[in-house]
């Protein structure tokens, strides 16, 4: 076991800012949706717009980071040991068995995480963000000060946006819970905060396999 610097500064900044923004967007978004009242509709809608642009900005940076650092390779899906991973969460974890896959700097994600995060990045976030952008641009004001309304129905835009939001919230619950399944219940969160995590040596791993 070795203390490894696994999450870079940007990665951690990106993760926590995205987390806060998504939670804040959920609070304001579901208020606009009419689910509860916290800020009042007017403020909620206003905050939601501001936070949504911040999130879009952050995502642009994150995409850039993924490609320039090559971190996108972490998300290449694999079926290798996928079944083992699922079985571990369903059975093994209760028996105190060891994790079926080991975490290294080059393989931060287990096969199940790869699949779920790929779904998150390629479907869930694009669905929610793009429907959100269409929602934002439903009515615009053109150069002649005339309000232009798009042809698509707001109702279906709202449907997809709400669907995305609900799935994100479900993701959030499971995601937060899964952080407790590391070596110790706080080791994963700790790593995302400090950047360091106790991992098996990569050299060791190579030797093993």
């Amino acid at each position: 076991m070795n203390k490894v610097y696994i999450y870079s500064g940007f990665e951690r900044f990106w993760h926590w800012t995205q987390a806060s923004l998504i939670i804040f967007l959920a609070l304001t978004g579901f208020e606009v949706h009419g689910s509860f009242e916290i800020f009042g509709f007017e403020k909620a809608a206003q905050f939601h717009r501001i936070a949504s642009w911040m999130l879009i900005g952050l995502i642009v940076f994150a995409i850039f980071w993924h490609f320039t650092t090559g971190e996108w390779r972490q998300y290449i899906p694999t079926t290798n040991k996928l079944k083992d991973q699922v079985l571990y969460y369903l059975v093994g974890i209760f028996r105190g068995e060891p994790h079926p896959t080991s975490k290294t700097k080059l393989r931060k994600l287990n096969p199940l995480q790869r699949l779920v995060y790929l779904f998150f990045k390629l479907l869930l976030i694009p669905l929610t963000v793009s429907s959100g952008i269409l929602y934002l641009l439903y009515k615009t004001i053109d150069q002649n000060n005339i309000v232009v309304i798009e042809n698509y129905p707001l109702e279906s835009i709202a449907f997809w946006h709400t669907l995305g939001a609900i799935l994100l919230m479900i993701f959030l619950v499971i995601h937060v819970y899964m952080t407790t399944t590391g070596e110790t219940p706080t080791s994963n969160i700790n790593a995302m905060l400090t950047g360091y995590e106790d991992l098996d040596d990569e050299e060791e791993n190579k030797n093993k396999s």
Partner: protein
Amino acid sequence: MLKNIFIVVILVIVSLVLVNVLHKEETYNLKLELLKQEYAFKPIPSVNHYKLPELQKDFKTPQEVTEACLSCHTETHKEVMASSHWNWERLSYVKGEGVSLTGKKNVLNNFCIGSNSNEKACAKCHIGFGMDSNKYDFENARNVDCMVCHDNSEDYMKGASMAGYPDRLVNLKSVAQSVGRPQKGNCGSCHFFSGGGNNVKHGDLEAALLSCSRDVDVHMASNGMNMECVDCHTAENHQILGKLYSVSTSNTNRANCEDCHTNTPHFSNVLNRHGSKVSCQACHIPEYAKVNSTKMAWYWSDAGKLKDGQPFHEEDSLGNHDYLSIKGSFKWERNVKPDYVWFNGTARQYKLGDKITTIPVQINTLFGSHNEKDSKIVPVKIHIGDQIYDKEHMILIQPHLYAEEKGDSAYWKDFDWNKSAAAGMHNAGLPYSGNYGFIKTKMYWPVNHMVAPKEQALSCVECHTRENGRLANLTGFYVPGRDTNKMLDKWGFWLYILTIVGVFGHGAIRVGLKVYNDKYSKQIIEYHGQDLSDDLDG
């Protein structure tokens, strides 16, 4: 650790809140200030009519005044006589029905019903003299009443039931010498009192506007801009801008807020974008009839009760008539929240002789729907009631109501619906079967005045709310905060709950098993320990 998460979360939220708090909303609104400046200066007339030699005489008849006016304004009568104020009708177009002449001559309402055969009383609000029947000569320029609109002395008034002639007490000379630009009182003398009393019909036009606070009307407030009606309802060649859809049909010649305030009057573009589907009035007139009550319902079927053979009246706590033997019973309301409808600027009216196709009878219909490009949500006063109709011909009846003496078949003197209906319909040249009844009616009055100060404009939640919002009755389109996909919400909610239960279940089993296993392994250790000690002892 958790502290760090909280700090990051709180920092983000605080920065978002700060953005909002530090953003000052009270920026100087240059557009509005320019308008205020423009209308702060009241026009000064270039002619003082008091000094004109033509007006230095004792006029015996009001027609002599008109002749004096026309001696200088030689062609003006032509303009006036081309207006609907004079003709009581104008060329109208209704989609699917074509072009026709529509106006007070041939439409009905659910207040005093109609002018036919009652001209002598109704003509109090005609800009002419001597209209006492439907055979009026609309070509006689001498009968144009210049004074009713242009008197600035506030002494002019039309006589009650005098066919549009001025009251006998009016000093025609002083009125003629003090003419000028129409003031609120000129327009108000008819438009405030239509339907037989102050604020009866409109609800947003009443005598209180002559001297009101900004809370009642920001434009006309005497402690505010103190604007005149004609500041917005401008006129070119006596054709006045603006119309009301109790008598109008087409989307032309309208006075719009946007004419002065532009399409994008707000700093917030979210609000500006609302303007494509929501009229200015919808948010900026939260209530109408803010000072005096307005009639919301009128039931003619209750008319005709007599006490000792004499007509009587009853009043409600605010002093409004709620029963009149000659007219029936009424409902009055004050500080009324408007109803809201989709409206594209076109309408149709029930015209004398039209077959009844719906119950309640739509006295006027405002066209529009959420999926039409030109339609907007507008506030309306809906006036309901019942009134007399011919059960066999299925048409609304124009009753003969007003007469000076008994024995002229007029309902207000004789209290005989049958005779009144026969006389009225005969006068209008329409059939009457002798079989009458009372039928429910509905009439829509767009609310355009009593614009409140911006602080009192509707807040978002008045409409963007799940239940009982102002737009609760308008369906078929998606309002964020009001509408949801019920299935998605239901499934989403239960899936979310299920996830939380699942996660806690999974966690509980993990913790439970861990505690059990820990205990178990401890026991083994203890057991082994005991074993060992036994061995040692042995």
